[in-house]
């Protein structure tokens, strides 16, 4: 039988039993929609993580003291003191792929202005920190290298801190606030970044010269982090190599010995997160895919019933010259059309569901490949689960089939 005839015969058969067809497509519709929604949420989350991270600077490289602790080994406290002033200073010149460098020391504690107080973290950094982390000063100014040299007690405050300490809309610029009883003069207020994806308030911070924080607050001569920005995202890898060599030389680490510091690019952090997202998505999609399997079995069941019901028709077709393969194709086409129709509707429902998820402020974006994949999977389901019924039909004996009542 020709292709167009096959399709016509299949569609006629499908339409002659609409309610049954609807029921057998229902499973596919639900399964495909579930897969698409899961993938959309997975993809959406990944995209929003990526956006979040690029807001924090996609070319950022973070250097921390101590060996790579991803293995989970506890380290000697002295191992956490390996990033020294000399390391920072050596990075300021002679590196080809590095744009900005800023050391970092942080302290958490209460900050007070008159009767108002809040708990925040003060980051001791150099002025370049703002460029690295893409902070903008909205009011006032940044502190200067001069302030760093002189350990001036000045600070820039985040929007949240400003709102907490100056609730009546007073201008914080020029005012003095106290962090752990040390007075800091406010020179600037940062432009708000809002909450990040994990619900953290990114505006609850103070930024001050690292020299001030080290001397007045932390009383330490090592850094907890050195923040670096590569010339571009693509050059992160090269910058990391450069920094690794420099630090190994500084720390006189012998060939073959482990680093006493850890360098991570923002990209790596992003990859770790997206990998986790991928795993979660995969688990969800597999769960949804099982419903497709069940739907396929449903189609097979209904096709088997249909083959038995139409035994006489099969016998008649055979008696006028249908070959086994004509008959099996007829039923295969039927099951494929059923599952593809279900798939198409399921894709539509999936889009709708993703849209609803977005309305509920879940990040969701339907990846095109998941649509194509679902479509392909449906075709396969029709083929695989239609095979058994189609074969049963094809192997019927024409004489017995035509006598069947």
């Amino acid at each position, binding site marked *: *039988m*020709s292709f167009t005839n096959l399709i016509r015969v299949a569609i006629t058969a499908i339409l002659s039993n609409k309610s049954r067809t609807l029921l057998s497509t229902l499973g596919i519709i639900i399964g495909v929609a579930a897969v698409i929604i899961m993938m959309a949420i997975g993809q959406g989350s990944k995209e929003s993580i990526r956006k979040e991270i690029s807001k924090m600077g996609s070319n950022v490289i973070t250097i921390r003291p101590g060996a790579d602790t991803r293995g989970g080994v506890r380290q000697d406290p002295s191992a956490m003191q390996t990033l020294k002033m000399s390391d920072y200073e050596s990075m300021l010149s002679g590196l080809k792929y590095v744009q900005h460098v800023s050391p970092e020391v942080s302290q958490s504690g209460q900050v007070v202005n008159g009767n108002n107080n809040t708990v925040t973290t003060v980051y001791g950094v150099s002025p370049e920190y703002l460029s690295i982390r893409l902070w903008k000063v909205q009011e006032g100014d940044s502190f200067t290298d001069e302030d760093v040299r002189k350990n001036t007690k000045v600070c820039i405050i985040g929007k949240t801190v400003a709102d907490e300490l100056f609730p009546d809309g007073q201008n914080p610029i020029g005012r003095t606030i106290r962090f752990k009883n040390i007075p800091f003069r406010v020179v600037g207020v940062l432009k708000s970044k809002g909450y990040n994806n994990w619900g953290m308030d990114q505006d609850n911070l103070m930024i001050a010269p690292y020299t001030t924080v080290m001397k007045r607050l932390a009383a330490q001569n090592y850094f907890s982090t050195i923040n670096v920005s590569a010339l571009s995202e693509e050059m992160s890898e090269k910058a990391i190599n450069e920094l690794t060599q420099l630090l190994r030389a500084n720390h006189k680490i012998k060939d073959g010995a482990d680093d006493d510091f850890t360098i991570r690019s923002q990209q790596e952090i992003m990859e770790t997160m997206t990998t986790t997202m991928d795993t979660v998505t995969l688990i969800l999609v597999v769960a949804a895919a099982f419903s497709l399997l069940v739907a396929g079995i449903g189609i097979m069941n209904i096709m088997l019933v249909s083959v038995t019901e139409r035994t*006489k*028709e099969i016998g008649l077709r055979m*008696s*006028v010259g*249908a070959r*086994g393969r004509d008959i099996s194709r007829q039923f295969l086409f039927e099951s494929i059309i059923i599952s593809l129709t279900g798939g198409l509707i399921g894709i539509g429902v999936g889009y709708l569901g993703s849209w609803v998820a977005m309305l509920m402020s879940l990040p969701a974006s339907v990846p095109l490949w998941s649509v194509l994949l679902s479509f392909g999977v449906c075709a396969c389901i029709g083929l695989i689960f239609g095979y058994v019924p189609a074969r049963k039909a094809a192997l019927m004996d024409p004489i017995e089939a035509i006598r069947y009542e």
Partner: protein
Amino acid sequence: MEKKVVIELRDVKRNFQVGSETVHALRGVSFKIYEGEFVTIMGTSGSGKSTLLNQLGCLDTPTSGEYYLDGTPVKNMKRSQRAVLRNRKIGFVFQNYNLLAKTTAVENVELPLMYNTTYSAKQRREAAIKALQAVGLGDRLEHKSNQMSGGQMQRVAIARALVNNPAVILADEATGNLDTRTSFEMLVLFQKLHREGRTIIFVTHNPEIAQYSSRNITLRDGKIREDVENTNILDAAEALAALPKPQDD
């Protein structure tokens, strides 16, 4: 002039295994049927008529013996080859019509040609319309099978058997479900086809029908008991005219 042999059976046997028992449905049947013959096959119930017709129609294969259809040996053919043979050389008419439900007359008649890819959709339809006109249903093309009388359905079935221009038309009790009058209408039709030169094999219980054919084969217990030419073929049209009119009852 030597007539062309359409069907040749040589000592055809067909056994069925029912549990541990063997049923000998055909115990060695041999005959030749020539082009243009109208053969009736008679015999008591269980004598093997349907089994024989299934052999002739390539729906089944002999346990032993040879069968040549239009010169082609059928016995060792594969299922799919026999299907093609049925499609091109045979027209089958069944006792209970066997039309596709909820399908129009034309579509039913088109069915065999659907499995013949050498026909285009247009040719298929034209052939179907021609066949329906030949059985006098030119005005019932779009009627669905459930909107027709038994006689009309059987005509559609006959048109379907004609549409592929087969070497032989096989009918198994084609008038068995019809009343006397309609049966005669069918006979008129078969006689018309016979006059047009078609080869017809007609299985029946009704000895009267044998009088309208050109040859009659009688089976008993899977063997041929009698095989006679009919030199005095009655005209079914006359018989039909002689029947009491329906309004006279």
